[in-house]
């Protein structure tokens, strides 16, 4: 019950905070609250705290793969503007890193 109350309060908090302008911190705070809520649900409601170490490992592994996907996708997009540095032995016509 206490968990439920905490979750409801966090929902109110995340909604209220969205009305305050914190600049780029807005998304950080929103995600932080969302992660806390999800962790509460997973740990207590879903009973991860009672599971075997192997199951806990699987849960962590799933999150690791998710972060790999997000990080690699992001690095792909952010490095789109980079071009090759032409070396004497390279055949690329473009020269210079434009970052």
């Amino acid at each position, binding site marked *: 019950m206490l968990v*439920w109350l905490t979750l409801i309060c966090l929902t109110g908090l995340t909604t209220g905070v*969205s009305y305050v302008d914190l600049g780029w911190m807005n998304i950080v705070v*929103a995600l932080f609250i969302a992660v806390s809520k999800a962790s509460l*649900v997973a740990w207590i409601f879903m009973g991860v705290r009672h599971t075997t170490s192997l199951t806990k490992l*699987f*849960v962590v592994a799933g999150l690791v793969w998710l972060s790999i996907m997000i990080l690699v996708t992001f690095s792909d997009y952010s490095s789109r503007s980079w071009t090759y540095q032409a070396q004497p032995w390279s055949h690329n016509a473009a020269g210079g890193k434009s970052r």
Partner: protein
Amino acid sequence: MAETVTPVHEAALEHTRLRHHFATPAQQMDAATLGMWTFLITEVLFFGGMFASYAVYRNLYLDAFASTSEYMNVVLGGTNTAVLICSSLTMVLAVRAAQLSNRRHTTLFLILTMIFGTTFLVIKGFEYHSKWVEHLVPGFNFHYALPQYQQHAQILFFLYFMMTGMHALHMIVGLGLLTYLLVQTSRRVFSASYFAPMEMIGLYWHFVDIVWIFLFPLLYLIGHRR
């Protein structure tokens, strides 16, 4: 594994539905839990792909995305979040009731969970309808009020319908699973010695709740609102 477990006499385990390839009911429960979590982490990656594409496009077109906040009904979205959290609570209580062999409470909490789930879907239906009326459905006469963001806002709305649509589909499947649990409960299948399906479907239900917990702030509460 070095430890040897002595197999228990079959008749004593009739109520636990112990299958022959498991040594103890506890081991069977652990295996079921691990299997369910394996499925759930595939679901994490399934939704994760859509979240990743959301993240990329939000990063690229933040202004357009922030401008769409006005068209998202925070009251309905927030209510839906609370509804799902309540449904998770009633689901936990239903599983606990099954563990305590309390059939009446199990049925009560299962029905409550289904009511909350249906409420969520009804509210979603209202939201979808209002989006349709406001010409915010990509591909169907989409027209955005701010012309400079027309193209990029459409991406957000595409993601909105894709992600909440997938989520709603999972909710519907969840409701079907809960109906199965209701039927099984009425047949007195669950008790303190056997409640695995309750717990596993509970895991699925909580997972769908977690997805919404992330969907809500990311889709509804993007820009700072005036």
